[in-house]
């Protein structure tokens, strides 16, 4: 290995990306846009406020009190529906997802239950809903919770089992703080994988690698410069993402030695995969398609955007076979939970994976053509 040669290659790669302003912009901008878009969406979910339409057929004091109770709950922004309207048609015409229909006779039934202990007296509210909406389930669950509370109060006896929340963390974290480590892992994967595949196939197609192979440069010099180049880009991108997260969302994350360690392991793993793809995909377009085929499942299944617990069991099993999952978990362990043991466990797994694919990548890199 010759540092002069590695340095020259590194300089050329950095100058090329610096002078290609569009590439430079999207390299940095893409993960920042992701953080801004998803951060804004999920930050507002921390104080989520659902829209709920209520049709009061009873028009009594009890029904009005019930609607007010739902508003005070804070989870709903209530719209009142004309009692004469058809709730099914209302859902279709007004783009709402649920209409809560309070039945006529609610107050009478309530009085019979409260004052005459008539346990046969009851009221049935109806949820008229649009099943194509993903938020309907959450709204109905919240409404059921509210109704359970009302029933409990009417029963007049204190609950036997009570619940209290206890976080495993000393302080409360917001969604954005769980989200950022996943986006860092995702952005570094994309940079390393596509950077390696795009640069190497382009240089091979243009014959520059062939020209280089007539000089004393070795395969190791070339690969080392590639790793350093990808690591520098990853550090720049990670720094930009963190700065935006602190500036826009006032994110509160722990920055420690694990962060560069996971970024480096991520770079090694995906540069290794990129080198293998470059060996087998002859054209730049097919190499990019192969890189897409690898990165897309990784992007959505490895827990970068949302927790894998939300996925069906078999997808969770697949997720745990993906290297990016361990980078996500490791970064969250280090930056959010400050769990060094868990970070170490994930680092060990991704480290073994990175070593294997990187060695395979070195073996797959064909330096002297036709040998």
């Amino acid at each position: 290995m010759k540092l002069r040669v590695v340095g020259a290659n590194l300089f050329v790669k950095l100058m090329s990306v610096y002078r290609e302003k569009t590439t430079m912009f999207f390299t940095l901008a893409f993960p920042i846009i992701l953080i801004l878009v998803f951060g804004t969406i999920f930050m507002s979910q921390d104080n989520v406020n659902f829209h709920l339409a209520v049709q009061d057929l009873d028009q009594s004091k009890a029904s009005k009190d019930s609607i007010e109770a739902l508003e005070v709950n804070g989870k709903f922004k209530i719209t009142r529906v004309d009692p004469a309207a058809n709730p099914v048609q209302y859902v279709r015409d007004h783009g709402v997802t649920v209409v809560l229909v309070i039945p006529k006779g609610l107050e009478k039934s309530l009085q019979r239950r409260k004052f005459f202990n008539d346990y046969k007296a009851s009221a049935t509210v109806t949820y008229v809903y649009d099943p194509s909406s993903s938020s309907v389930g959450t709204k109905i669950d919240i409404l059921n919770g509210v109704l359970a509370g009302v029933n409990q109060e009417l029963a007049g006896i204190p609950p036997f089992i009570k619940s209290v929340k206890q976080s495993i963390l000393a302080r409360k974290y917001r969604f954005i703080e769980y989200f950022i480590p996943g986006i860092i892992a995702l952005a570094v994967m994309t940079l390393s994988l596509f950077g390696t595949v795009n640069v190497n196939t382009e240089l091979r197609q243009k014959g520059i690698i062939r020209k280089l192979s007539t000089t004393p440069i070795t395969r190791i010099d070339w690969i080392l410069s590639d790793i350093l180049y990808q690591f520098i880009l990853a550090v720049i991108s990670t720094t930009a993402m963190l700065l935006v997260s602190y500036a826009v969302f006032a994110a509160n994350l722990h920055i420690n030695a694990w962060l560069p360690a996971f970024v480096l392991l991520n770079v090694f793993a995906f540069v290794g995969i990129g080198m293998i793809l470059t060996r087998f995909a002859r054209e730049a377009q097919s190499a990019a398609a192969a890189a897409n085929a690898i990165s897309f499942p990784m992007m959505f299944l490895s827990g970068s955007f949302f927790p894998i617990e939300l996925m069906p069991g078999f997808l969770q099993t697949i997720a745990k076979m993906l290297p990016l999952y361990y980078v996500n978990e490791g970064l969250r362990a280090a930056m959010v939970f400050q769990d060094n043991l868990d970070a170490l466990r994930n680092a060990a797994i991704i480290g073994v994976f990175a070593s294997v694919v990187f060695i395979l990548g070195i073996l797959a890199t064909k330096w002297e053509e036709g040998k």
Partner: protein
Amino acid sequence: MAESVISVRKLVKRYGDLVAVRGIDFDVMRGEVFSMLGPNGAGKTTTVEILECLKSKTSGEVSVLGLDIDQRVREIKKRIGVLPQDFNAFDLLTVKENIEFFGKMFSDHIPADDLIALVDLESKRDEYFKNLSGGLKQRVGVAISMVNDPDIIFLDEPTTGLDPKARREVWEVIKGLKAKGKTIILTTHYMEEAELLADTVAIISKGKIIAMGSPVELVENNAKYQIVTLQSVDEIVFETVRKIGFEPVLSDEKTSESGWSTRKMCNGY
């Protein structure tokens, strides 16, 4: 007597069932321009890529600068310069930066400015490579092939795809290298290029050398007639040559935008 710097004996290269090079022998002497002439697919590039240590041979004996090409690859690469076919450099580096980059691949190298002067590219020194014309790019390629002050320079079809003006510019650069006493291996499929530049021409067809010697010897021993290439803006020049027995080779006339006609004429019609 001139020293042999390349020795090739019974060289064979196979790709599966395809035999690209079929047992060829030749020597290249120090300071000469040795041209391999032949059509596409004749085996020229395969042969030079074996000499450049880019491809392995199937059988035969090859030494470059007295070094075995199987055993001494690293040392050979330090002492040769290569302009590959369809040469390209880094688009977003300037001419000077590209030359400096390739120079850093070697422990000893010629300063970029000296090489820029050698190929007469001072005015394009700070131009991005992507903005150069085909002829200028080839001149950068020649400069890069000289960056380690090599003992032998391989120029693989350096003028293919260039217009006549750019081709002549590259020829001038190659003549300059020849005047400096460099040993040059030049592959081409242009007869006039080999005739103009080479001391020795090996004509390769289907992986075999079918004729070898100086351009004069090859013409004397093989040509039944002569072809001249004329360039003129005036038809009278072509008429004068016609009077001494040369006829235009049909379908080979080209006229540039500035009115210069290039015409091949043959006395064998």
